[in-house]
């Protein structure tokens, strides 16, 4: 046990030292920013859960069934999330961490290293899931006016589920790594996990839950509620947890204790099984991981001949960017996710019941089209944050190559800009034109939104590249995650401000033009001035949004590189 504690110590020391040696203001600002966002999110979940459960409480008979069904679904989701998160974390912790060579060269049994890593993996993979599901469970306690036992039981049940999920995942990982090397497995599990998530999401979306509040299909809803009484599978740990919490909510302490004990017994069995299996095969799997080839598929697409027209340095960067993107299988899942996002986006517009709305359809269609520009802008921001923002950090330790090539930082950043600008412009224009067609908007709105997006895209991409260059992280294990850093949050906030400002500037003039068109009258001199002034301001703002972040990024990057 002493060695297990020692193996965990560097992590504790690193955590302690982070704050001790660097007394920088940036860290405190970051902490405050993320803390506030986190607390708001937590509070939001708490408020929504309370609201939903209080509403359920008002429905006699059906309310409790719904609340318990919801609890069972939450616990199943909680358990699945824990397993998925734990698989990804344990692959990294047990097989891909950079300090593994160091710890395995020490005179410590591999099963002790396994235990220490599993503890770290369990904590890392579960803390966020626990923190953000706690308000949901607490809401149950408050709404059902549960006693102390419920809260104690809640903690015990959550902990047992965490241990079961974590040990199930490590057993799976330790066994599978002996057949599929860890680096491949991580790519595959991300890919399959995303598939699973999207299937569930699509299935839920296409079920059209909004129909449940439509009186015309209420008989179907009743039939659905009848099916809610079907008991959950008894062999699932989440079912034991649900039964335990249900018993605790209704004050049946003995019944609750029984299910909690069942859950803990299984947790113990799984932990010991994991240790026994790891003792036998963990080191073998680790040796395999260090020696296996990483590429999942052989990419035969080697020449990018269509880029020949570009100047040498530009072509070099574009080619490198395209090749690394398509050879990194973790990126594919992101493409898949974007495709799904676009389909859902368009589907939602198609499913809008505009004809049932009490407001005049033509007005609503064009209002939605106008607001859709903002929405498309936010989708664009999200995609830019994922791809363009980490574009500089993605060079990682190979950034010396950029510095040693005969291209200035400015040209380098502009090359990066154009690499991402064109695909993002095409994607966003497709989004906006397709949704406008679905909404059947006027030609004026079509022209306006197409032009607005044409000016928004370069601004947002320039901000992504600029802020990414200003706050690079060349040491990040996964540069795509740098967007959650201080610079990333700043980028998203400035982007939101920019998109909001454009929409705000255009709102008044567009309303005037639209109303004049409906009333079949011309614009007054004042309206003309307002329209011209607003659009000129949007143009100036868009140019500034391109130039200022790019210059800022260039300046900061050159300062950082000394």
């Amino acid at each position, binding site marked *: 046990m002493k060695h297990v504690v020692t193996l965990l110590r560097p992590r504790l020391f*690193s955590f302690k030292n982070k704050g001790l040696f660097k007394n920088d203001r940036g860290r405190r600002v970051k902490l405050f920013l993320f803390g506030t966002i986190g607390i708001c999110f937590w509070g939001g979940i708490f408020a929504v859960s309370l609201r939903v459960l209080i509403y359920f409480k008002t429905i006699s008979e059906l309310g409790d069934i719904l609340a318990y069904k919801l609890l069972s679904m939450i616990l199943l989701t909680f358990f699945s999330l824990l397993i998925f998160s734990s698989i990804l974390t344990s692959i990294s912790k047990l097989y891909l961490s950079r300090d593994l060579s160091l710890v395995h060269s020490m005179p410590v049994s591999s099963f002790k290293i396994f235990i220490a890593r599993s503890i770290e993996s369990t904590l890392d993979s579960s803390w966020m899931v626990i923190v953000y599901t706690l308000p949901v469970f607490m809401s149950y306690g408050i709404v059902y006016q549960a006693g102390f036992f419920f809260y104690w039981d809640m903690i015990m049940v959550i902990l047992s589920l965490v241990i079961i999920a974590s040990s199930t995942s490590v057993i799976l990982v330790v066994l599978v790594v002996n057949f599929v090397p860890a680096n491949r497995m991580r790519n595959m599990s991300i890919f399959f996990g995303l598939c699973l998530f999207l299937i569930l999401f699509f299935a839920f979306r296409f079920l059209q839950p909004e129909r449940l509040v439509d009186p015309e299909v209420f008989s179907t809803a009743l039939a659905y509620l009848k099916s809610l009484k079907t008991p959950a599978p008894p062999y699932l740990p989440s079912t034991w947890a649900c039964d335990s919490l249900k018993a605790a909510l209704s004050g049946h302490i003995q019944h609750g204790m029984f299910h909690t004990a069942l859950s803990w017994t299984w947790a113990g069995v799984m932990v010991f099984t994991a240790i026994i299996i790891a003792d036998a095969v963990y080191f073998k799997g680790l*040796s395999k991981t260090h020696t296996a080839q990483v590429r999942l598929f052989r990419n035969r697409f080697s020449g990018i001949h269509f880029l020949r027209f570009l100047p040498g340095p530009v072509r070099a960067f574009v080619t490198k960017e395209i090749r690394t993107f398509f050879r990194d299988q973790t990126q594919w899942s992101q493409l898949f996710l974007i495709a799904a996002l676009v389909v859902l986006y368009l589907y939602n517009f198609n499913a809008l019941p505009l004809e049932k709305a009490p407001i005049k359809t033509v007005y609503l269609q064009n209002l939605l089209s106008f607001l859709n520009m903002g929405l498309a802008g936010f989708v664009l921001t999200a995609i830019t944050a994922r791809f363009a923002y980490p574009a500089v950090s993605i060079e990682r330790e190979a950034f010396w190559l950029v510095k040693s090539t005969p291209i200035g930082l400015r040209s380098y950043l502009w090359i990066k800009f154009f690499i991402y600008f064109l695909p993002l412009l095409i994607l966003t224009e497709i989004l906006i034109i397709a949704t406008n067609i679905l909404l059947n908007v006027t030609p004026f709105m079509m022209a306006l939104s197409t032009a607005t997006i044409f000016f928004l895209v370069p601004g947002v991409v320039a901000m992504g590249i600029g802020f990414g260059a200003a706050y690079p992280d060349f040491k990040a294990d996964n540069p795509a995650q740098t967007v959650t850093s201080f610079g990333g949050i700043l980028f998203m906030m400035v982007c939101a401000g920019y998109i909001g400002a454009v929409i705000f500037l255009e709102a008044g003039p567009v309303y005037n033009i639209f109303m004049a068109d409906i009333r079949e009258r011309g614009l007054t001199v004042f309206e003309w001035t307002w329209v011209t002034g607003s659009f000129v301001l949007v143009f100036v703002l868009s140019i500034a949004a391109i130039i200022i972040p790019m210059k800022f990024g260039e300046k900061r990057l050159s300062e950082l590189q000394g």
Partner: protein
Amino acid sequence: MIELKNLSKKYGNLLAVDNLDLRVPKGEIFGFIGPNGAGKTTTINMVGGVLAPTSGAVMICGINMADQPEHAKRKIGFIPDRPYLYEKLTGMEFLKFIADLYDVDEDTFLKKSQEKLDMFFLSDRSNELIESYSHGMKQRLVMAAALLHDPQVIVVDEPMVGLDPLAIKMVKDHFKHLADEGVTIFMSTHTLKVAEDICDKIGIIHKGTLIATGTYEDLRRDVHAEGADLEQIFIRLTEP
């Protein structure tokens, strides 16, 4: 004492180390040289117990690494070529971490850590975070950590990379001193001058096979090149 018996390692279809048979007696400095990709680091990792061989055995002071890995590793001070260090730990915290894993008691740790920090010119920086260290300082810290528990065998991959001339001289002298005291040193290096200066015996590995082994004089004799230096011997043995 180190003994490698029919040691082989396969990476997929590539045979990185092929049937290596070697014995390094107590108190000897053995230099392992070879071209890039010859199998040096793979061998070093197998001797250090970081990598499991596909077949064969590694014996450290008579202990089989596969059967009793903890016992075998306790005898070793392992210094990899690109060591991973916990950047957010101070130098002293890192030494304590290593000492705890080797079960070095508190008094010995205090004495030894100060001694090693002084020896590797790290005393005045020992309470600073490792992330602020230069490459050479990190390399010296790893060496200090590897020597904390008085190992009977030192396994070291490219010991002089990143070190300044003063540190190189100190490390060479210290290795010689340790060998005189009975410590066995197994080192891989590209710096042929270092091998020439301090190694009692040299092994040349090429495409996973040990193609020559012996003293400097033995190797000269093998290639029939009287008066040749190690570089000439190396080129003659490994050129295609």
